[in-house]
C-alpha cells in the first residue's frame, strides 16, 4: 500500500516536472528496442583509468626492430629490458610492463586479452586523410574524451551514457525498482539514463541515514524525509532536488538491507581504494539473487594517470596498484564461484604522446586496453600493434597514435556477450555503422573476436 502510494506520488512529481521543464529536443533519445536476454547471470564491469594511461609503456612491440624504434622515439620514457616481461604469441614478440606481473599471469592462463591501439572515432581514419576526415570534437581533452567513452555520442555531450541506455532498454524483471546500474565511489555520464536511475555506492559501501533521535512525531528518518517531501515548491529545481534526496533515502535503506545479508568483508586494512571498490563489486554480484537481477552494470575509476611529469615512477606505483587490485578481484570472483558470470574491461581518456616532454608525456589519442573474464579468448593481442617510428603512418605529426580500432569495435564483442544483438548495438552506439564501413581504409584487418564463439550466437 505504502509503496504504491510512493510510486503514484513519484509519478505525479515526474509529470509535473516534465510540464514545467523545457525539454531539450536534441536530448530526446531515439526509441530503443528492447534487449532480450537469456536466463544466465551476467555482470559487466567498466574500469576507467582517469587521466589518460600511457599504454605505450603497458604493452610493447618487442620485435627487435620495433623495440629499437620504441627506445629511439621516447628515450627518456622507454622501459629497459629489465623493466619488461617478455612473451611470444603467434610468432610475434611482445612485452608488458614489469609491474603487471599478475596481469601477465592472467594473460598466460588465457583469462585476459589485450586490444591494441583503440581510440575515439566518428569515421574510420588514416594519416593521409587525417585533416579531411571527421574526427571527434575536442580530441586530446580530458572531459570530452572521457565523455566520449561514457556516452559514445560525442556530438551530443551531457545527455545519456551507453550503460544507462542499455539499462533502459533491457527487458528484465526489476525487483522493487532496484537499480541495475551502479557507480562505485563515483558518478559517471556512463550511468546516466532517461529512465533507469543508477545507485552510487560510497567507497566503503552503502551510506545510510543515521537513525533519527527520539522524536514524538516521526517514526524514522525515512518518515522524516517523507514528510518534508510532501511539500511542493514553485521553483522547478527545488522539486528536482526533493525527488533526488528522497530517492536516495529509499534506495539506501533497501540496498543496505540487502548488503547486510552477506558476510563478505570489503573494507580490508591495507587494501587500496581500488581493491576495496572491486571487492565491493564482488559482494554486490554475489547478492544478485537478493537484488533479483539477471544483469548488472558497474562503473568505477582510478585516478592519477595524467602523467605529465615523473611518468616512470608514477606509472610504477599506479601499475603496481592496478595489478594487485585486478588480481585480488579476479581471485575473489573465482572463490565466490562468480568468475563465469563477470566480464571486466578497462578504458582511459586517451593514450599519450609517444615522444616526451623530458620526464612525462602529453595527452594523446590511440591506446592499448585489456579485457578479462571467463568469456574472453585470452592470451592474445587483438587489433594492430602500431609502429612508433616518428613519421610513421600510425602517428600524427605531434606523435600521437592514430587509432586503428574504434571504441565501438572494442565494445561490440563485450556487448554481444552481455546480450545485445546487432540491432541493439546500432541503437546504443549511434556511430557503429559508419565506423565499421572501412572500404576507404585499407589497413590489415585483424578480427577482434576476443569473446568465445558460444556467446555470440
Amino acid at each position: 500500500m505504502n509503496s504504491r502510494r510512493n510510486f503514484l506520488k513519484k509519478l505525479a512529481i515526474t509529470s509535473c516536472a516534465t510540464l514545467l521543464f523545457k525539454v531539450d529536443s536534441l536530448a530526446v533519445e531515439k526509441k530503443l528496442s528492447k534487449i532480450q536476454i537469456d536466463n544466465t547471470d551476467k555482470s559487466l564491469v567498466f574500469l576507467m583509468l582517469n587521466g589518460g594511461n600511457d599504454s605505450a609503456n603497458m604493452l610493447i612491440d618487442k620485435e627487435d626492430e620495433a623495440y629499437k624504434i620504441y627506445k629511439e622515439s621516447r628515450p627518456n620514457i622507454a622501459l629497459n629490458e629489465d623493466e619488461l616481461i617478455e612473451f611470444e604469441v603467434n610468432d610475434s614478440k611482445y612485452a608488458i610492463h614489469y609491474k603487471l606481473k599478475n596481469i601477465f599471469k592472467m594473460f598466460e592462463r588465457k583469462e585476459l586479452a589485450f586490444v591494441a591501439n583503440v581510440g575515439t572515432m566518428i569515421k574510420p581514419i588514416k594519416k593521409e586523410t587525417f585533416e579531411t576526415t571527421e574526427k571527434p570534437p575536442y580530441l586530446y581533452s580530458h572531459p570530452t574524451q572521457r565523455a566520449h567513452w561514457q556516452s559514445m555520442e560525442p556530438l551530443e555531450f551531457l545527455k545519456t551514457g551507453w550503460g544507462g541506455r542499455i539499462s533502459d532498454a533491457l527487458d528484465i524483471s526489476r525487483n522493487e525498482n532496484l537499480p541495475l546500474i551502479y557507480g562505485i565511489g563515483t558518478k559517471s555520464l556512463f550511468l546516466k539514463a532517461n529512465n533507469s536511475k543508477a545507485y552510487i555506492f560510497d567507497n566503503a559501501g552503502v551510506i545510510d541515514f543515521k537513525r533519527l533521535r527520539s522524536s514524538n512525531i516521526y517514526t524514522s528518518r525515512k518518515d522524516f524525509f517523507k514528510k518534508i517531501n510532501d511539500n511542493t515548491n514553485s521553483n522547478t529545481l527545488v522539486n528536482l532536488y526533493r525527488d533526488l534526496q528522497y530517492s536516495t533515502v529509499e534506495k539506501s535503506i533497501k540496498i543496505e538491507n540487502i548488503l547486510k545479508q552477506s558476510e563478505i568483508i570489503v573494507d580490508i586494512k591495507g587494501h587500496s581504494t581500488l581493491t576495496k571498490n572491486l571487492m565491493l563489486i564482488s559482494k554486490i554480484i554475489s547478492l544478485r539473487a537478493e537484488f533479483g537481477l539477471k544483469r548488472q552494470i558497474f562503473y568505477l575509476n582510478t585516478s592519477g594517470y595524467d602523467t605529465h611529469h615523473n611518468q616512470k615512477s608514477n606509472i610504477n606505483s599506479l601499475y603496481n596498484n592496478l595489478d594487485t587490485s585486478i588480481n585480488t578481484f579476479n581471485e575473489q570472483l573465482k572463490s565466490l564461484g562468480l568468475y563465469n558470470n563477470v566480464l571486466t574491461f578497462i578504458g582511459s581518456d586517451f593514450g599519450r604522446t609517444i615522444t616526451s616532454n623530458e620526464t612525462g608525456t602529453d595527452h594523446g589519442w590511440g591506446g592499448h586496453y585489456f579485457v578479462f573474464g571467463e568469456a574472453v579468448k585470452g592470451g592474445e593481442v587483438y587489433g594492430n600493434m602500431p609502429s612508433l617510428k616518428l613519421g610513421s603512418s600510425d602517428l600524427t605529426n605531434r606523435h600521437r597514435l592514430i587509432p586503428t580500432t574504434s571504441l565501438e569495435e572494442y565494445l561490440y564483442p563485450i556487448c554481444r556477450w552481455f546480450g545485445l544483438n546487432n540491432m541493439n548495438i546500432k541503437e546504443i552506439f549511434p556511430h557503429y555503422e559508419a565506423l565499421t564501413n572501412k572500404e576507404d581504409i585499407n589497413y590489415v584487418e585483424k578480427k577482434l573476436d576476443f569473446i568465445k564463439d558460444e556467446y555470440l550466437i
Partner: protein
Amino acid sequence: MKYLHLKKKLLTSLVLTFLSTNIMADNINVESDIEASRFLTQATFGPTIKDIQELKEMKTYEKWVDTQIELPYTKMAPKIYSMRGDLLTEAHRQAVWWNTVINEKDQLRLRTAYALSQILVTGFSKGFAKKEYERTAYYDILIKNSFSKFNTLLKEVTLNPIMGQYLSMLDNKKAVPQKNTHPDENFAREIMQLFTIGLSELNPDGSIVLENGKEVASYTQKDIENLARVFTGWQLNSRKDYISQMKCNETFHDSNQKIILGKKIEAGLTCEDDLDRALQILTTHKNTSVFISKQLIQKLITSNPTPEYIKDISDIFKESQGDLKLVIKGILLHDEARIERNKKSSIFGKFKEPMIRLSAFYRATNTISRLRKSTPVKVFIGQTYLDAGSVFNYFRPTYKVDPSSIYVTPELQIATDSILPKTSNFLEKKIFNLTCKVNNLKLCIKLEDELIWVKDDVDRFINHYNLLLFAGTMSEEMKSEVENYIKSFKYPTSNKKSKTVEQISRKRASHALFLMMSMPEQNFQQ
C-alpha cells in the same frame, strides 16, 4: 590621441551602463530584512542579524558593495604561519579557512575568492603534503586579486609555483630535438580550456556558436603547441621556494615566433614579455569575458542566467578590461539578481555550495571560530577548499541532473547517493552538539536568545531562522511543521528545575534546526 579617445569612450559607457540604462539596480533601496538576507546569501558566507542591519542602514546595495570593496583584505598565509609550532597539516589549512570565512569582515572579497578558486583550480598534487603554508599563499593571491583586473590575477596565478607544479608548467623546457622532447602542453591546454576562453566559440550572450549545427572549437592543437612554447623556462625562484613568483631561465625558453589564436608573438622576446603577450591575447579574446562572467554569475546568483544577464556582465568585463570589482558589482546589482523573488522565473536561483551552506549555518548560529585544526569536510559534504579531485573542480558548470532538460544544476553533481546521507549525518552531528566552550580550539556555537524564543516564542524562533537560513522562503506549511515538531518536546509541568528546562530548550532547538536544514528549500538560494 587615439587611445585617449577610446579610453574616454569606454569610461563614459561604463558610467552610462551604471547610471542611466536602468539595467543595474544601483539605486534600489534595501526594502526588507528578507531582501537583505537574500542579497547577503548571494554575496557572503551567510547572513547574520548584524549584517542585515548594517546593510539596511546603508540604504542601498551599491553602498554595501562599495564599502566591501574598500575594506582591507584578509591574508590567510600569516594565520597559518602563526601555527607553525605544530607540524602543519591539511587540518590546519582548513581551520584557517573556516576561521576566515566565519569571522572576517571582507565577506564579498572572500566569497569571490572562493568562486575564483573553483575556476583557477589547484587541488592536491604529489609533493603538496608539506606545502600547507605555500598552498595558503596561493589562495591569498586569489583574495588579493578578487577585485583586480582579470589579467593581473591570471598572471600572478600563472607564475605561482603551486600552480606551476599543479599543471606542470614549473621546469617546463623548450624542445630538444635530439631527445625527441617537446614542451609540456598541460598548462597551455588548461589555461585556454578552463581559465580563459573555453572549448568552443561563444556568442556574447553565452550561447554556443553553431555552424551547420555544430560547435566551433575555439582553439586548435596548433594553438596549444604554440602556447606551450610560451610557457617554457620557468623555474623556482630559489630552491624549495614555493611562494615567490617563478623566475625564468632563458636558456630553457623557446624564444622563436609563436602564432596563438591567429595572433603573432614575434621571435626574440624574453620569457616574461612572451608571457605578457600571450595572456593579453587570451584575456582579450572575445570568449573570455563571456566565459568568466557566466561562471561568476553561476557561482553567486543563478545556475541558469538569461542571455541578457550574461551579455550585460560580459560587456562590463570587456569594457573595463576585466575589472573584477565592476564585474562582481554588476552581477550583484543586476535586475535579474535583485528583482523581487515572487516575480522571478520558476528556474531562477542555484543550489548552495556545501561549504557555503555550512558556513552560513555557523554564521546563523553566532559561531565564533577559533579552530586550530579542522578535519577536511570533503568526505562528508563533497567539497572543501583547494581540494577538488582535478582541475575540473568539484563540479562542472554544465552538469545536469536531468539529461533531458536544458537547465544545468552544477552543485548537484556532488549530491550523490553517498554524499547526501553523509551530509545529513554530518549536519545532525553538528546540530545536536550546539556548544560553546570558548577556551576550546573548536567552533563555538552560541545560542542565547534563541533558547528563550524556542521556549516562550516559537514563532519568533522559526522566523529568525527562516530569515537567516532560508532568506524567507519557508512556506506556512513548512513553518507549522517545524512548530508542531518543536512543541512535541514538552517541558515538565512540575519540578521546574532550570537545568531540565534548558535541556529541553536545547533539544527543541536542535531538532528544529535539523528539520529545517533537511528541507530541500534550505539548500537552494533564489
